[in-house]
């Protein structure tokens, strides 16, 4: 089976000469939940932007062997339009694609209900809490019915409980919609909880040093966070991350 997307020797340097990423080689299959984990500034976000087509790579390529799927993007900040209601924010992708009003509204309502915001359609972003704003942002991504969901440290700014509840909701949406998710995070525990696979990246320019497959139960909850299985997964990710950091510290001190 050909992968959903392939990154081949993907690299990105910026105009100021900073090499942010790569070369990175990675295949991602349909239905996977892949976390990119690495220290700040290792080019994880850059990788997502290149995959989304928002940045052109300096070298290498992103290929979609089965054609480019519909892509959803969730940023670290909710990135909502403050002048628009939750509903109008959620339907943005559909409006931009000139979908007819009635259908766009129905789809946006469904998306909001799925992230637990039924009844908040008319609320403006400033009336919502940080977690709810992030839910609107996820609903907006879902409204376009993506196959591939790119998430750039989406829950980093939230408190721990909100974050855990969004983690669980995200897993549910991933399963229900057969989504492929690429999830950037710097949290070892978050990656170990969510992912079917964790890709550990080195400090700048980011390369993948470890590719860890995690056997996960379909149903994960607060108990799972206490389990040995979860602790083992987190331990493996943590060890690779320490290894990646240590190697680069040796390299940079030489």
């Amino acid at each position: 089976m050909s992968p959903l997307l392939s990154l081949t020797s993907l690299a990105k340097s910026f105009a100021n000469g900073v090499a942010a990423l790569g070369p990175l080689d990675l295949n991602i299959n349909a239905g996977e939940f892949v976390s990119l984990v690495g220290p700040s500034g290792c080019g994880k976000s850059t990788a997502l932007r290149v995959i989304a087509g928002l940045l052109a790579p300096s070298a290498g390529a992103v290929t979609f062997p089965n054609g480019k799927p519909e892509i959803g993007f969730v940023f670290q900040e909710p990135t909502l339009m403050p002048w628009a209601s939750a509903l109008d924010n959620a339907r943005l992708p559909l409006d931009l694609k000139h979908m007819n009003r009635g259908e766009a509204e129905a789809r946006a309502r469904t998306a909001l209900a799925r992230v637990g915001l039924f009844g908040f359609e008319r609320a403006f972003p400033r009336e919502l809490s940080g977690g709810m704003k992030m839910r609107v942002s996820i609903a907006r991504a879902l409204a376009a019915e993506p196959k591939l969901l790119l998430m750039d440290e989406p829950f980093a700014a939230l408190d721990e409980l909100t974050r855990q509840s969004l983690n669980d909701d995200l897993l549910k949406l991933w399963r229900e919609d057969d989504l492929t998710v690429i999830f950037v995070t710097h949290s070892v525990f978050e990656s170990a909880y969510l992912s079917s696979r964790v890709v550990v990246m080195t400090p700048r320019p980011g390369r993948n040093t470890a590719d860890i497959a995690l056997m996960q139960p379909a149903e994960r909850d607060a108990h799972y966070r206490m389990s040995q299985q979860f602790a083992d997964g987190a331990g493996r990710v943590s060890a690779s991350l320490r290894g990646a950091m240590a190697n680069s510290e040796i390299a940079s001190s030489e």
Partner: protein
Amino acid sequence: MNRALQILIPIAVGIAAIALWEFLVRHYNVPPFVLPAPSAIWAAFVENFATLMASLWTTLSITLAAFALAVIGGVTLALLFSQSRIVETALYPYAVILQVTPVVAIAPLILIWVGFEHIDVALLILAFIVAFFPILSNTTLGLKSADHNLIDLFRLYGASRWQIMWKLQFPTALPYLLGAMKVSGGLALIGAVVAEFVAGSGTATGLAWRIVEAGNRLQIAKMFAALALLSTLGIAIFFMLSALEWALLHRWHESALKKER
């Protein structure tokens, strides 16, 4: 402090000041050509009601026309700037030159070009020049302030430049534009008045000219009456633009947030 008091206190201060003024003028027999009593100003207002209202209308229509042109022109040019770096680079310095050159200094030139038989057109142009720049510069800044992640998101969903401009950049710029309109509304009035002082008598006789005329004839009470009308006009413009700002922003913009936290 509750809202009623916030309105009542300044009104009470105003009434007290006017009463004191009336008392002092009467008590010390101040000559009316130095400082007329409020009652005399009111009498002059009633007596000259028709001419003052006609002048008010002249000044008001020039101010509003200049303001409307400034908003339309400023927003249009700012939208053009946001779409083309070249147009902005080419034209922005000239907009600045127009702004920094004192309107009083340009007035005689504009008068000669337009011709003394069309003084109202000259006044309109001069008031426009004064009111135009804040709209242009603030709207340009606002259009450039759109959230970069949102721009990326629009691009991800294949938005056209037109969609980015109307659905993202323009709403982002709206609070900047409305702030600039409050400044420009006042400036349009100042421009119309200053220009009339410079242009002198002609076909248009606005409030500024009534003030000059009354001053020359030592009708100080009438001068005060015209002055009061000008202030009232300025205040009315400010309040209407504040109301417009509130109507458009209060549901979503931070500036309209009540201190509820």
